[in-house]
C-alpha cells in the first residue's frame, strides 16, 4: 500500500524550478493563486476517480457529470429554485448517479468501462436537452459564488476556495483509505475481489461506495467549475475532464489493475498537469503543442515510474534473499 510518490514529486519540482527559472512572473502571487486553484479543481476530480480505480474499475462519466451538474444548477437558478436547495439536490443527484453506476456494475455485472461510457453519452445528452443547450450563468447567487470560487486572504495572498475543498476532501479521503477498515477493504478488493469476499468483505457494497464517492466528487467539481467559470455550456463544460482526472490518478500512482493508489500522489499529479499548461503559456510555447507535451510527460512519468518500480522490486528480492540467510 505504501507507494513511492517520489517520482511524481520529483517531476513536479523539476518543472516548477524549470519554469521559475525561465519565466520570471511564474512565482508571482497571482500566478501561484491560479495554479493552486486549477490544481485543486483537477485534484478533486482525480481523487474521486482514484477511489474507483483502486477497486480496479474506471469512471469515464466524470466530465459529463460535471457538465450535468453545472447545467442543472444554472437551470435551477433560472427556474427560481432556492440555490442552496439546488446545491443539495444536485449533490444528491451525483450520489444517485454513482449509485446507479455501482448497481449496474455489481448487480447486473456490467463492465465499468461500458457503464460509464454510456453515462458519458447519456448525461451529456440530458444536459443539452434539459437546458435546450443554452449557455447559462449563475446570477444572484453571490453567497454560493464566494463559497465555491471566492478567495481567503492571507496577507496579500488570496487562497482560492477550491483549495479548501481539496484540503477537506483530501484529508477525509486519505483517512478513509489509510486508516479505516473500509479503505483497507477497497485496496483488498481491488487486488483480489474473491479473496476479499471470502474474508467476509461485502465487496459489492464497497464498490458501490467507490462509485458513489467518485460521482459525488465529480458533482462537487461541477459546482466548483460552474462558479469558477461563472457560466456553463451544456455541450462543452467538463468535456474531456475524465481523461485528465484518470491521467492524474494514474500518474499519481494508481494502478488501473486496482489495489494501488495514494491521495497525495494524485494531488501532485493533478498539479503537474496544471503546472505544465501554466508553463506552456508562460514560456510562450504554441498552444497547439499543449496536448502533445502533456501526453508525453504523462507517458514518460508513468514509464519512469514503472522502470523504477522494477529496479526496486529487484533490489527488494535481493534483500529478502539476504534477510533469510
Amino acid at each position, binding site marked *: 500500500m505504501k507507494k513511492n510518490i517520489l517520482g511524481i514529486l520529483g517531476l513536479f519540482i523539476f518543472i516548477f524550478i524549470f519554469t521559475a527559472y525561465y*519565466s520570471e*512572473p*511564474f512565482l*508571482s502571487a*497571482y*500566478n501561484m*493563486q*491560479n495554479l493552486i486553484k*486549477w490544481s485543486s*479543481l483537477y485534484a478533486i476530480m482525480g481523487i474521486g476517480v482514484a477511489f474507483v480505480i483502486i477497486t480496479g474499475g474506471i469512471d469515464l462519466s466524470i466530465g459529463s457529470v460535471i457538465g450535468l451538474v453545472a447545467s442543472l444548477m444554472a437551470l435551477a437558478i433560472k427556474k427560481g429554485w432556492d440555490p442552496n436547495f439546488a446545491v443539495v439536490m444536485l449533490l444528491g443527484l451525483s450520489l444517485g448517479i454513482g449509485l446507479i453506476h455501482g448497481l449496474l456494475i455489481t448487480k447486473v455485472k456490467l463492465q465499468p468501462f461500458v457503464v460509464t461510457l454510456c453515462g458519458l453519452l447519456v448525461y451529456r445528452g440530458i444536459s*443539452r436537452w434539459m437546458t*435546450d*443547450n*443554452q*449557455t447559462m*450563468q449563475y446570477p444572484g447567487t453571490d453567497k454560493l459564488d464566494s463559497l465555491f470560487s471566492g*478567495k481567503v486572504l492571507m496577507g496579500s495572498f488570496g487562497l482560492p476556495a477550491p483549495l479548501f475543498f481539496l484540503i477537506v476532501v483530501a484529508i477525509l479521503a486519505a483517512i478513509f483509505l489509510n486508516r479505516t477498515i473500509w479503505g483497507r477493504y477497497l485496496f483488498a478488493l481491488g487486488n483480489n475481489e474473491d479473496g476479499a469476499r471470502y474474508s467476509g468483505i461485502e465487496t459489492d457494497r464497497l464498490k458501490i461506495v467507490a462509485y458513489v464517492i467518485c460521482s459525488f466528487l465529480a458533482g462537487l467539481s461541477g459546482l466548483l*467549475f460552474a462558479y*469558477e*467559470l*461563472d*457560466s456553463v*455550456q451544456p*455541450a*462543452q*463544460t467538463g*468535456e*474531456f475532464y475524465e481523461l485528465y482526472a484518470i491521467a492524474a490518478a494514474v500518474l499519481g500512482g494508481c494502478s488501473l489493475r486496482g489495489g494501488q493508489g495514494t491521495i497525495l500522489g494524485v494531488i501532485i499529479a493533478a498539479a503537474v498537469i*496544471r503546472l505544465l*499548461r*501554466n508553463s506552456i*503559456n*508562460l514560456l*510562450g510555447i*504554441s*498552444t*497547439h503543442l499543449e496536448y502533445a507535451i502533456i501526453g508525453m510527460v504523462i507517458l514518460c512519468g508513468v514509464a519512469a515510474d514503472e522502470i523504477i518500480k522494477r529496479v526496486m522490486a529487484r533490489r527488494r528480492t535481493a534483500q529478502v534473499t539476504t534477510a533469510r540467510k
Partner: protein
Amino acid sequence: GKPSDGDGATEGGGAKPKHKIAYVTNGIDPFWDLCAAGVKQAENELGGVECEIHFPPKGLADQKSILETLLTKGIKGIAVSPIDADGQTKFLNEVASETVLITHDADAPKSNRQVYVGTDNYKAGRALGQLVKEAIPDGGEVMIFVGRLEQLNARQRRQGVIDELLDRPHQVLGQVKFDEVAKVFKGDKYTVLDTRTDNFVMDTAKSNAEDAITKHKDLACMVGLFAYNPPRCLAAIREAGKLGQIKVCGFDEDDDLLQAIKDGHAQGTISQQPWKYGYNSVKVLKAILDGDTSVIPANKFIDVGFKVVTSKNIEAFWSEKRKMAALGAKKD
C-alpha cells in the same frame, strides 16, 4: 427532384402547405441558439415555412451526415454554415442539385449555393481593432484569445484586428493574407503579442487569460474572438485586481461581456447579430422557394452587417438580445 415553384400552390383549398426547410449550423454553441431565435422569428412573422434546426455535435462528419439525412427527407431548402467550404464544395454542389442551398455565417464561394448570408469577418475584425484603439488610445500591448484558429472566420477576425492596429491597408475578403501565429507584431503604438487557443475548453480559456496577465506585466488590452473568450478574460482581470487597468474588447454578445460593457469594465464588442443570420436565411429561402429570385444580389452576398456595441448603445442592444434569446430558448 428539383423544387418546383408552385409546389404547394397546386393543392386547392385549405391552408397552403408550408415549405419544409432546414437550418444547419457548424456546431453546438450559444451563438447558434441566437441564430435559431432568428429562424423562429422568421417562421412566425413570414409564415408558410417550417424550419428544422440542426446542430452537428462533432465537426464535419456529423454535419455531412445531417445534410444527407435532410436530403433523404426531401427538404426543400437548406441554409448551412459550412465547416470547411473548400473541402465541402463537391458535396455542397450535390446538395444544391437536390434542393435550394444557401450558406450563412461562412460562405462556400466555389459551390453552387444560391446566396451567402453573412458578415465580412475581416471588416468586423478591423472594427474590433478600432475598438481596441479607442480603449487604449496611447497604445500598448494587445493579446488575442480564440477557441480554434482553424476556422476561417477566426483567422479573418484576427487578421482584421492585427491589420487595423498596425495601420495596414485594408484587404479584400476572400483574399486575406494571414499572418503567422507564433509571432509578435510591433506597430508604432500597438504591439500584438500572441494568439492563444483553447480548443473550446472553458477552463483553458480562463487559464490562458490568467497566464497572459501573469506573463505580460504591461498588457493593456485583451481581445476575445469567440463569444466565451471575453468573459473569461474579464474574470481573470477581475481576479488579478486589474479591472479597468487591462481593457477588454470582444466579439459576440455574451451576457457577462454586455454587463461589463455596461459597467465600464469592457470597451465594447462586435456583434454579428446572429438572429439576423437566422432571420435572413429563412427569409431568403422562402423567397426563392416562392419563386422570387430578386432577393439574390449580383454578388450573391447578403451582408447582414455587424453592430459595434459600446456603452453608448448597450441598453438598446441588450434588450433586443434578451428578446431574441427568450425566443430561442422557447421549446416548440
